[in-house]
């Protein structure tokens, strides 16, 4: 049975050709399942603007975490014969804690991404593109490079694609660490061979991006939807959500932490968090109770068990005071400390700050210092108030990019829902048990730790 036949209804376009036991399809296998049909249709029968319209009508929203409508992003790019050099970049720098969906698409369906990039490049009139891949995804790099070589040999990439006039070269660029590279403009700086500091916006990359030229940066999952929209149309795409959301399409959802099963599942967008956790992830491990969950990564606000019935889409989760982010849920159970979880998240964010702007560079280590003290039961009077203030001082509008505001999301929600856990970490003048020794000295600051743990100085 062909792989596509297993999903004859075309309900799971992104993963329908994935067979973990058999591994990824090579070019011939992918073509046999209908692969590269979208590219042929696009190049031979459609104008770039036709594809842009289809994507806009489908209301595809960016799957990297922000949910910005892809069609609108594309529409800002200058078109026409005098537009000059333009670039397409795939953001495959998947480092958001708790997120492991793009790896699946790249490891198991590399040709889908290659075709998607060719179609997207045609739609925006780009002749050169890059897949910005985190260096640790070794297997992805190997499989993508193989797919690119195969596609090039068959004239799906390179000059005169499918005998026409348009050409598109595609390369895999592997990074060398640093979470901040996933920020759109930091990614562009990194790709240019610079330190990955974000750029001020505007100008937006669609106007002045890579090497100062109009550039589109899209996430892996976002791009992988494009060939299917070209093949099946905007109405088909919108119907994929089965009325669960006003957004269209499917979404790669997942679950990790102490759930019974951990994994990634392609489901209609708007599927409830409860279905993801209880049906697909099989509920909480050991029958422990769910205490809190992050909807989609380290920079999203915690939600509670009472929010589980919400539809996992961008607007619904926003209304509940969080963000869907990458859509891969991280669960915290009743035995686990929220203070320790927030400390871990803030340590990550402090270490990964690029240091470009002061609120982030100084505010995050400060946050960590307080969190470590509270975790050790040595919180000082005023610490909780300071943390609350930090969530404002590091909030939206005060920094170059979304790194620090994102870091404040789990903290502000933890303060809202679990304030008593923070209060329990305050140093109090109570009598010591005879067996208790003197309090331990404070742990080193994140910068001291990072310095001690780094070998790149």
């Amino acid at each position, binding site marked *: 049975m062909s792989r596509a036949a297993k999903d004859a209804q075309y309900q799971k376009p992104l993963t329908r050709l994935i067979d973990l036991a058999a591994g990824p399809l090579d070019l011939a296998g992918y073509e046999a399942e209908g692969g590269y049909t979208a590219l042929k249709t696009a190049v031979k029968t459609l104008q770039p603007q036709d594809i842009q319209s289809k994507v806009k009508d489908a209301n595809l929203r960016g799957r990297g975490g922000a949910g910005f409508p892809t069609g609108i992003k594309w529409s800002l790019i200058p078109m026409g014969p005098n537009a000059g*050099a333009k670039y397409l970049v795939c953001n495959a720098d*998947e*480092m*958001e*804690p*708790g*997120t*492991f969906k*793009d*790896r699946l698409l790249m490891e198991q369906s590399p040709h889908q991404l290659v075709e998607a990039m060719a179609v997207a490049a045609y739609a925006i009139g780009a002749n*050169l593109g890059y897949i910005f891949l*985190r*260096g*640790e*995804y*070794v*297997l992805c790099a190997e499989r993508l490079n193989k797919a690119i070589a195969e596609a090039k040999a068959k004239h799906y990439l390179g000059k005169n694609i499918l005998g026409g006039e348009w050409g598109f070269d595609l*390369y895999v*660029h*592997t*990074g*060398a*660490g*640093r*979470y901040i590279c996933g920020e759109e403009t930091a990614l562009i700086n990194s*790709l*240019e*061979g*610079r*330190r*990955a500091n974000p750029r001020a916006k505007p100008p937006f990359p669609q106007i002045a991006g890579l*090497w100062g030229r109009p550039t589109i940066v899209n996430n892996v999952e976002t791009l992988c939807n494009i060939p299917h929209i070209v093949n099946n149309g905007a109405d088909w795409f919108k119907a994929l959500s089965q009325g669960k959301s006003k957004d269209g399409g499917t979404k790669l959802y*997942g679950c*990790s*932490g*102490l759930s019974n099963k*951990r*994994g*990634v599942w392609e489901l209609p967008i708007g599927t409830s968090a409860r279905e993801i956790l209880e049906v697909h992830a099989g509920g909480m491990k050991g029958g422990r109770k769910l205490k809190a969950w*992050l909807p989609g990564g*380290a920079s999203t606000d915690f939600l509670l068990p009472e929010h589980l019935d919400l539809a996992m889409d961008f607007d619904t989760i926003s209304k509940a005071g969080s963000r869907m982010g990458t859509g*891969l849920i*991280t*669960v*915290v159970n009743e035995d*686990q400390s929220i203070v*320790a*979880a927030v400390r*871990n998240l803030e*340590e*990550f964010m402090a*270490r*990964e700050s*690029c240091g470009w702007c002061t609120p982030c560079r100084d505010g995050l280590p400060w946050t960590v210092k307080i969190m470590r003290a509270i975790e050790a039961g040595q919180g000082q009077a005023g610490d909780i108030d300071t943390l609350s203030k930090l969530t404002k001082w590091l909030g939206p509008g005060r920094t170059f990019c979304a790194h620090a505001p994102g870091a404040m999301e789990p903290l502000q929600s933890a303060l809202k829902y679990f304030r008593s856990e923070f209060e329990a970490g305050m140093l109090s003048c109570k009598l010591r048990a005879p067996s208790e020794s003197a309090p331990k000295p404070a742990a080193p600051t994140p910068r001291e730790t990072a310095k*001690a*743990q*780094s*070998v*790149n*100085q």
Partner: protein
Amino acid sequence: MSNAVLKLADLPKAQPFVLSEEERHEIEHALGHYPDSRAASIDALKAVQKRRGYVCDEAIPVLAEAIGISAADLEGVATFYSLIFRRPVGRHVILVCDSISCHLTGYDELKGELVKQLGIQPGQTTKDNRFTLLPICCLGACDRGPALMIGDDHHGPVEPADVKKLLEAYA
């Protein structure tokens, strides 16, 4: 008295750094991917690190010349990225994921066991130069946490009891 004066000529000279044929070839190959040569900076640093374990100070001006940018610019790039090593590392670099999913599924115990087995703290290299232990941000292996990488190999979930045997596979 004159014997006590330190003369410049007596100071140990830095070994001249010469790129191997293979390294030079790999850098030239990377340069072909970009309209601007600066973009090959990370590829060039990696080409050296892949074969020498780390990027020594002497390599910087040579690499900068090969890609046509200033040594100061390349130094800036080389010190920004956490996976470009500027000091010698062991034969195998262990990258332990310390992000939230692994934190919730046993990172502390895993790190504790690694520290115990290796006798070093994160950021250090074993005396026999076999292992360097480093933290890494989310490895995208949350379905297999607690996770780590040794060299190019991903492992997970790694229970503390598995550590000894796992390390034995890396001589």
